[in-house]
């Protein structure tokens, strides 16, 4: 209890310091938290209520300024001589500002990108939930990775068996805050009362949930909600009297009873809840269509805290032991034997939930690993570049080094000096990279968010990210610093004298030896750089082409100028008794709305449907076409949608044979259906379906509803749930004919005659609320939905494209640097050659030959490496082979062109050397 309280105060102190942009050491945070906890305790002791006591302590915290505390000096002392090395290193780096700036910038990008990626991996994959003993938490799963969603009856049964010390069930949701008209969503969760006790988290103000709150229809305090700290700050400005205030959710007034600590975001990683509502209040929102009664509504994830000293294996064994009883108690008696067999299979297992549950993690783990490798390669390329720069400088500093040797410096002292320079360089890069990482990771998280899914990741500092950056910084410094340091330590004191001797003496000096070695080493570094760049450019090519293929894929409809309005009629009171629109009245009411929308200026067409493509939902069933292809029960699966007349025309989906639904296809008329080409191919081997009958399967396998639908039309194939998936067999039925599932929301799709469809939102909202003022309306353009469904591919393409380009730039810079350096060194030789009659073209060839050889070696190595590595990203590609020859060839040509250009610029300068001037200088 005391620990939990202290943890909360610690979190508040940290949050306060963060808002003041102050960094406090953990000792200071602990001490201040202790002080506040004492203050809180003393207030309680003199009779203040818990809220009042907290408020007093919060007032003290809020009135404080952390300016002086953050400056708390700490004793730091560098071991002897190192401070001097650092000063010297800084001076050296300042002496060659361009080299330093290029090096620091490429390191900043390299280290920054690595840190950004790692901080996302850290928060998504590695970091434990900020709760009490997260290692004791477990979730119920069937695949060993994610939570398996259960029905409410199953959750009630599990809860009553006390399999865990504490447990809770939850489901993510978005709640509408708007009191009427257009929706304003907030991320929330439905949760059972045990959530806060199970996780060991207490609200900082007010209270959590009690079992009484979880009673069906609400507890003694009516509908209640607990809100997050950030929502408290955002919506209520952190007002101390927020507890007790009202908050309208889904048009129902809820009372706020508690505020959670700042670092608590809920059981889902990648998402933050702002409002938590007890499951018991769900029937208030969904009315008769409540999920609590649904034996087929799988929506609740379950997390429990293991009983000590239970291990996850023993807990799984005892869970599996009671599965048959749970199944018997929760499956409806009319369930088919297939359902009996497939429901609550024995493969259920408990998996550790220290890191929470995360759909984002499941989806992005592979792309993230691919991107981690990409950014690591970028850093390697940057290191190769800097190593080359430093080698060049080491060769130029041979004289300085030999003098220092002559003055008594040991070889180790010289090597140390150069290593310190590398470390200073990489530290400067890391510091700047840190800013790049903060900005980059936040940008990336924003890019992952869509209109309907706000991604939240806790990107605050932790020891892992700090350790990673520190390790990368030191490793980078060693990687690019060790070769120049080693070479410089080999300098002999006598070289100082030789350097000032005759030109012939110079031929045998260490400077020349170093130069010769440098050329070899630099050549190898360039080859490595080009090879790695080829890999990155190949990866970029594959990902960018995947995205562009998906983005330009024919969808089966015209995505532009479509506005989709999701109409939620749950809280549209028509019926005086149930206070909600009776399902039977929903379609006629919407039809009136549809008519008035169709009459609006700027509207070319409009249609109603249960679902729209790439929406969150899907509806499938098993079908048969008498006289069609014989299929197994599993193969009979097809998707379904219910649409109004004019829906196909609104989407621009062609009716290839037969006719569209007509106004006369209503209740009472013969049931009709339209199927798509995929359906005709799958069920009828491509024969015309028009005039045939399609029947939907009953629950038991092999049985079908006696009354079928007459197929009146064949629609062109159009995507259903995802752009990536092949078009599934789909059956469309008329929305005006009975037979659909109970639904509270429908989609009205509007095609704009001209201009952006979003501009129609206002007039459509006005027309619809004139029909029923209690419709909850959500507007989204179809283009936006499709773009959002390709977020993963877009982000991967964007990142790999950026890093591929960066790799190309770095490789080009590297080649340019090496060639320019070689030209400068060979100035005299080139001058002599030209004086002896060499043509400028010959000089360019002389210089370029070596560059071209290096590039060719790099490309050959890189192409092999790229072809081998591409197999690991095969699952992230679409419509492309991992060893796509066109992509490999394009990457090779790009690298060859960039490299040749980078080599040609210094070669051209070499050809313009004035022989007389070059010979005079020598």
């Amino acid at each position: 209890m005391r620990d939990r309280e202290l943890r909360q105060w610690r979190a508040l102190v940290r949050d306060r310091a963060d808002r003041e942009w102050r960094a406090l050491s953990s000792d200071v945070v602990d001490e201040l938290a202790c002080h506040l906890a004492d203050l809180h305790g003393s207030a309680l002791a003199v009779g203040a209520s818990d809220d009042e006591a907290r408020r007093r302590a919060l007032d003290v915290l809020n009135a404080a300024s952390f300016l002086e505390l953050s400056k708390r000096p700490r004793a730091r002392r560098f071991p002897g001589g190192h401070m001097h090395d650092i000063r010297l290193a800084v001076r050296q780096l300042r002496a060659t500002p361009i080299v330093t700036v290029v090096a620091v910038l490429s390191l900043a990008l390299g280290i920054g990108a690595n840190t950004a990626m790692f901080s996302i991996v850290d928060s998504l994959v590695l970091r434990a939930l900020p709760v009490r003993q997260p290692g004791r938490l477990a979730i119920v799963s069937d695949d060993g990775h994610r939570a398996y969603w259960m029905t409410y009856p199953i959750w009630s049964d599990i809860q009553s068996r006390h399999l865990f010390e504490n447990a809770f069930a939850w489901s993510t949701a978005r709640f509408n805050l708007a009191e009427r008209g257009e929706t304003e969503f907030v991320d929330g969760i439905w949760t059972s009362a045990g959530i806060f006790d199970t996780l060991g988290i207490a609200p900082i103000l007010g209270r959590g949930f009690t079992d009484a709150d979880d009673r069906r229809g609400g507890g003694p305090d009516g509908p209640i909600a607990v809100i997050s700290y950030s929502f408290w700050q955002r919506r209520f400005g952190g007002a101390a009297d927020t507890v007790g205030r009202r908050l309208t959710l889904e048009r129902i007034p809820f009372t706020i009873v508690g505020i959670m600590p700042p670092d608590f975001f809920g059981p889902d990683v990648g998402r933050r809840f702002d409002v938590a509502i007890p499951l018991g209040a769900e029937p208030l929102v969904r009315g008769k269509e409540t999920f609590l009664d649904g034996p087929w509504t799988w929506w609740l994830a379950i997390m429990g805290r293991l009983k000590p000293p239970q291990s996850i294996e023993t807990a799984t064994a005892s869970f599996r032991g009671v599965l048959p009883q749970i199944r018997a108690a929760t499956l409806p008696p009319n369930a088919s034997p297939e359902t009996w067999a497939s429901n609550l299979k024995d493969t259920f297992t408990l998996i550790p939930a220290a890191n929470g549950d995360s759909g984002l993690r499941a989806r992005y783990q592979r792309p993230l690993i691919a991107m981690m490798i990409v950014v690591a390669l970028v850093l390697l390329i940057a290191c190769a570049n800097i190593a080359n720069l430093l080698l060049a400088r080491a060769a130029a500093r041979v004289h300085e080094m030999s003098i220092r040797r002559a003055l008594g410096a040991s070889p180790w002292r010289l090597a140390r000096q150069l290593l310190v320079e590398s470390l200073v360089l990489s530290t400067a890069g890391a510091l700047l990279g840190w800013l790049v990482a903060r900005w980059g990771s936040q940008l990336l998280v924003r890019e992952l968010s869509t209109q309907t899914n706000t991604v939240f990741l806790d990107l605050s500092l932790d020891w892992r990210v700090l350790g990673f950056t520190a390790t990368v910084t030191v490793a980078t410094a060693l990687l690019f610093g060790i070769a120049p340091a080693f070479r410089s330590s080999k300098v002999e004191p006598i070289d100082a004298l030789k350097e000032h001797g005759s030109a012939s003496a110079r031929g045998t000096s260490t400077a020349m030896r170093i130069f010769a070695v440098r050329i070899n080493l630099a050549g190898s570094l360039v080859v490595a750089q080009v090879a790695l760049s080829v890999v990155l450019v190949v990866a970029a090519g594959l990902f960018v082409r995947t995205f562009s293929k998906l983005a330009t894929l024919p969808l089966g409809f015209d995505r532009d100028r479509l506005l989709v309005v999701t109409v939620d009629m749950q809280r549209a009171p028509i019926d005086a008794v149930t206070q909600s629109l009776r399902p039977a009245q929903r379609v006629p009411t919407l039809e009136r709305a549809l008519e008035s929308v169709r009459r609006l200026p700027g509207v070319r067409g409009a249609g109603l449907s249960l679902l729209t493509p790439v929406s969150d939902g899907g509806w499938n069933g098993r079908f048969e076409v008498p006289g069609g292809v014989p299929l197994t029960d599993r193969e009979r699966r097809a998707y379904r949608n219910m649409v109004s007349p004019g829906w196909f025309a609104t989407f621009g989906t062609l009716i290839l044979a037969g006719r569209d639904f007509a106004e006369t296809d209503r209740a009472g008329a013969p049931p009709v259906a339209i199927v798509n080409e995929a359906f005709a191919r799958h069920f009828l081997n491509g024969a015309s379906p028009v005039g045939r009958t399609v029947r939907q399967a009953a629950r038991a396998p092999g049985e079908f509803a006696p009354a079928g639908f007459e197929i009146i039309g064949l629609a062109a194939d159009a995507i259903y749930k995802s752009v990536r998936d092949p078009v599934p067999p789909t059956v469309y039925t008329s929305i005006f004919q009975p037979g659909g599932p109970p639904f509270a929301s429908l989609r009205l799709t509007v095609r704009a005659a001209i201009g952006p469809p979003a501009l129609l939102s206002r007039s459509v909202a006005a027309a619809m609320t004139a029909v029923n003022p209690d419709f909850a309306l959500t507007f989204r353009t179809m283009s936006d939905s499709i773009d959002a469904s390709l977020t993963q591919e877009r982000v991967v393409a964007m990142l790999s494209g950026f890093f591929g380009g960066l790799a190309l730039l770095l490789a080009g810079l590297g080649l340019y640097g090496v060639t320019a350096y070689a030209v400068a060194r060979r100035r005299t030789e080139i001058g002599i050659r030209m004086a002896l009659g060499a043509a400028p073209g010959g000089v360019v060839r002389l210089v370029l030959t070596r560059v071209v050889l290096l590039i060719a070696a790099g490309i050959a190595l890189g192409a092999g490496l790229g072809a081998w590595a591409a197999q690991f990203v095969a699952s992230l590609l679409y419509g492309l082979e991992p060893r796509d020859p066109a992509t490999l060839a394009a990457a090779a040509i790009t690298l060859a062109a960039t490299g040749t250009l980078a080599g040609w610029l210094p070669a051209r300068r070499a050809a313009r050397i004035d022989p007389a001037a070059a010979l005079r200088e020598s």
Partner: protein
Amino acid sequence: MFVAFASCAGAQHLISLDDIPDSRIKSVVVEFTSTIREAKKGTAELVVLAFLEDESCHGYELTQLIEARSGGALTFNFASLYATLYKLEERKWIQGRWVEKPGQRRRRYYTITAHGRDVLAAQRKEWRRFFELIRDLAGVTYA
């Protein structure tokens, strides 16, 4: 607006800021304010040292003691108190140590060091001399 100064004759004397040339006003006020601020800082350190002279205390206890013994006249801002404690610790006048007593949460107790005692004695002497001076010059006495 008036500022109180002690005149060299010993009697309290009021100087109107209007009597001072404009260019001087700012510097006089700044000088005066910073003197007071420095004096206040010095006093805070003296008070903390004095309270720790007889027994070790943790931060919260110290605020309670100071508030109680000064009858509420002297209060410390939460953050300033710890800033003062850390400063004294840096100077090695006091020493902080995390102590966990049975049945209580872990707290940081501060103890005066031998060096701190010397400083306290010296400061007391200094303040005493200062007040004697003020008494002689301004006729102000202190309890």
